[in-house]
């Protein structure tokens, strides 16, 4: 059984079909990449899995559980964490506090216990900090630990967002363009981290990424989308060489062909 499975999922915004009868399966332990031109529906797939959107038809299951029966805030409890394309951090909080929000699904104490700061709360807080500290060490965030997000450079924010997702100790990590806007070195780091997240933490990674260099180096399987439809699936090399993918990105020489001369 696949870890995450979308079966024949369709999502429409008014007259626009964002995702059309899409099926995909992400297997436990792999790095699965979604590629495609702008507007292909890659981030929409993430928002479907996060339950921000409800599909018109189709099924989405995670480890055999029906995701469509859950509210968005119940999804992380299953072990799904994500980052956002445009970085959605808690601006006025410190890096540490942002990462601690990632621990939200592991909280055990009630409001009453928290009001009086009972020993149970203190014990829990200590555990959360221990877990977060491991993430800080892993991502080399020590210099920014107590800095507020509002003053941090873009590249660091990107890493903090990855850290917040990791702090929740997910089974499946959704990375929405982890390397967009990063420098060459930062992209390198991101590449090692993604590889380590899979290999040492045993977390399945699904990512949307435009940087084909990064996709080619870290992912096991790639699915190319265009206009909400599946174009091609396979190893990075196979997908990159696929004629339909090349047509979707670059257009075709003869406008009469199936892709219709569309330029991405």
């Amino acid at each position, binding site marked *: 059984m696949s870890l995450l499975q979308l079966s024949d999922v369709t999502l429409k915004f008014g007259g626009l079909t964002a995702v059309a009868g899409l099926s995909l399966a992400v297997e436990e332990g792999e790095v699965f990449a979604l590629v495609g031109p702008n507007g292909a529906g890659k981030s929409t797939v993430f*928002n479907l899995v*996060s339950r*921000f*959107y409800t599909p018109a038809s189709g099924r989405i299951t995670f480890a055999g559980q029906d995701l469509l029966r859950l*509210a*968005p*805030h*119940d*999804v*992380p*409890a299953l072990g799904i*964490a*994500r980052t*956002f*394309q*445009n*970085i*959605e*951090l*808690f*601006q*006025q*909080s410190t890096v*540490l*506090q942002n990462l*601690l*929000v*990632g*621990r*939200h*699904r592991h*909280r055990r*104490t009630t*409001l009453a216990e*928290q*009001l*009086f*700061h009972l020993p149970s*709360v*203190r014990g*829990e*807080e*200590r555990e*959360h*900090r*221990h877990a977060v*500290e491991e993430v800080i060490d892993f991502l080399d965030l020590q210099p920014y630990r107590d800095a507020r997000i*509002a*003053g941090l450079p873009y590249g660091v924010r990107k890493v903090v967002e990855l850290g*917040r997702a990791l702090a*929740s100790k997910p089974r499946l990590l959704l990375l929405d363009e982890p390397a967009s806007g990063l420098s060459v070195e930062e992209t390198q780091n991101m590449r090692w981290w993604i590889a380590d997240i899979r290999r040492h933490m045993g977390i399945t990674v699904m990512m949307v990424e435009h940087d084909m260099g990064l996709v080619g180096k870290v992912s096991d399987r790639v699915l190319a989308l265009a206009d909400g439809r599946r174009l091609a699936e396979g190893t990075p090399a196979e997908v990159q060489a696929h004629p339909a993918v090349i047509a979707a990105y670059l257009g075709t020489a003869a406008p009469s062909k199936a892709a219709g001369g569309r330029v991405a």
Partner: protein
Amino acid sequence: MRFQFKTSYEQDIRLFEDRRQAARYALLLALAVALPFLIDDYFLGEATNVLIWAIAGLGLMLLTGQAGQVSLGHSAFMALGCYACVLMMNAGVSFVLAFPLAGIVTGLAGALIAIPAMKLHGVYLAIATLALAILADDIIVLTAPWTGGVAGLYAPPIDILGVTVDRWSTPDLYWWMVLAVAVLVTLAYVNILRSATGRAFAAVRDSEISAQAMGVNVARTKTIAFGLSCAITGLGGALMGLFAGAFNNETFTFLISIQLVMMIVVGGLGFIQGAFLGAVVIAFLPQALSLATDALGRGVAIPGLEAGVFGALLIAFVLFEPTGLWGRWLKIKTWLELFPFARRDMFRRQRSYLKTERLR
């Protein structure tokens, strides 16, 4: 400049960041406890008034400063806390029990109202809660058999385990009672902030969408914030009514709500210290104004002066110092610590250009 070298997780969890800070607040508390021996009864009464405002303000601060939700209806919850406490006391419940119960009742009522109200955002939420504040007046009149309506109610004497606490005969006891409540409320406030719930508040304030993606139930978090906020404000309302001695439908008008908003903005949104600083401004500004008019206009009253100055002050702070008095103090402190290396741009607010479009 001092740099704190952290060696244990406890340093991030405990109340004070270091010994010096703990010592400063201990000194402040000692000063507050000794206050009745330092100033006369008139000023002690004024100080008590400030502290009561601060408690009510802490309630709104939790909602607006931490969870990022507006409310112009908090005067209604002050009224509810006040009437609940006094009616229970009149029914024979001891103050020691009636007072916390009044807070719980107000908190539950607030949470109940929050369930529909928290579906609204920004200015719509402000208008809905403003309607609540205006409604409170009418509800008090309509329920005159219990509330006394326009005639109002007299506050019964406060009896704490056999000791009578009265504003006029034992102002020092009254001060210590209010001080104890303020300390306990502040402690509960800090405890919330250093727990998962407090972080969920900040998460909802800064980005609802990613709060959800981290498993924070946004509707539930807002409801908890509103409930806790109303409970604290209700306690402030109860103390205010008991302190005033008599109150009716016009004691807690919606202008009180506006004053509460002004208090937390002037004091500094999101800072506990801000609620206390704002309370000082709110409580002493009318006195300062009347002193000023006495000196300048030879006692000629200028109608609307107080409301006008309050409004102008609020606008000035929103425009020029959105972090309030406490935020300004933190900037001055940083400037002094870094002297002469502070730069102008250090405190400039960073604009965030990238923001995920609202997904719904």
